């Protein structure tokens, strides 16, 4: 005597994500930082910017801050991100 039950999970429909493409080099690259807007992101991104300039020779950093730290990045930010060579998205608390 067995009992048959149904799988309650989202299961096999889970969408598969792939990693974003990696740039071959960061030299002279434009790197975007997208912050969730919380105070804790500031010092981290300051340090990261110094590190990327000193160690990897990036060209410039563009900083963006989401208007709602609990929601996805604003469409305008994602549009601007298309111009960048790399993007770092950070969650600070």
């Amino acid at each position: 005597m067995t009992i048959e039950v149904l799988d309650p999970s989202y299961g096999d429909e889970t969408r598969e994500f792939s990693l974003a493409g990696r740039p071959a080099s960061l030299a002279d690259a434009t790197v975007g930082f997208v912050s969730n807007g919380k105070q804790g992101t500031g010092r981290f991104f300051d340090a990261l910017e110094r590190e990327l300039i000193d160690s990897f020779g990036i060209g410039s950093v563009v900083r963006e801050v989401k208007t709602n730290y609990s929601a996805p990045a604003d469409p305008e930010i994602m549009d601007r991100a298309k111009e960048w060579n790399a993007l770092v998205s950070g969650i600070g608390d």
Partner: protein
Amino acid sequence: MADTSTLSSRRISLDDPLSVQEYFHSRGWTDGLPVVPPTPDAVAACLDWVGLPADHLVGVEPVRGRALTAEKVAINAVMAGCLPMHVPVVITAVTAMLAEEFLLHGTTASTGGSAVLLIVNGPIRNEIGMDATFNALGPSDRASTCIGRAVRLVLGNLLEVRPGEIDRSTFGHPGKISWCLAEDEENSPWESLATERLGDPHVSAVTAMAAMAPRQVMNEWTTEPEQILDTFVAEMRANMRHYSIWPGNYAIVLPPQLRQHFQAATWSKSDIQHYVFEKARIHRREWADCGKRAVVGEKGDQEYAALPDPEHLIIVAAGGPAGGFGAVIPPWLGHKSRAATVAVGACTDC
């Protein structure tokens, strides 16, 4: 017997109901409590009752693009202990949570740890045996407990809102196990919450709110509406000082003993909302009194209101017949999420 042939979820054969418990626990599919085995017959009976095909799209979670079907919601409702007649409320609750203004992902992922508070209005409350009186904010009746739990299982199993996965709550609170209450419309001097928000006096509806833990207050020593509300306002101001200063949907729950004083004084819901809107305010400098001097900055004299406007105060008539208590239920984090009300049976994207 309802038709089970249209169910598309994977079928799992196990030895017995106890095996189901351990199998489901081991996969993180429960909240730690035992679940009712979601057999195809039980799930099909729920879909039959609610009159929806298994593949009916209840909605799409807007951030992750997850499509939630009636079948999957029904499976989780059965697990929570729901009877088929409870499922229309569960479906409606999920629909409300998927409304853009509710910001489901943010509210469920946040370290802030809010719960989903469901408030049920209309004839369906009585049809399914919800009790809006004794222990209103606790496990008051079967329907309320199971419906609230079903929503939590939906979040866990369909959106991975589990502790340490999507749910990053530092603490959370007990409302995250199950939190659903009916409004005591029959004994209220006011129009129901759903009527206030949807404009239909006959509607059955569910309001979902991203809510922090309830704070119980007491004032049995006056019949003056202003003094009673000053007690509620004091708790709201305390929340603004100790937790979050940002305005949003606060809910207050008023029991019969206090409601009678408002009725005697002919105070409407709108009167209450406007009084609280004017009084529930603090200056940022008050943060210095409770250890938050570092974030007062240059804005010490700036005044902050608990409510963006009077209508953001959600007034719920509920509670047992005796006791001059009340409850203040603060929002998750100000205006980032707004309460959403959806009529039972409504299709929001048809």
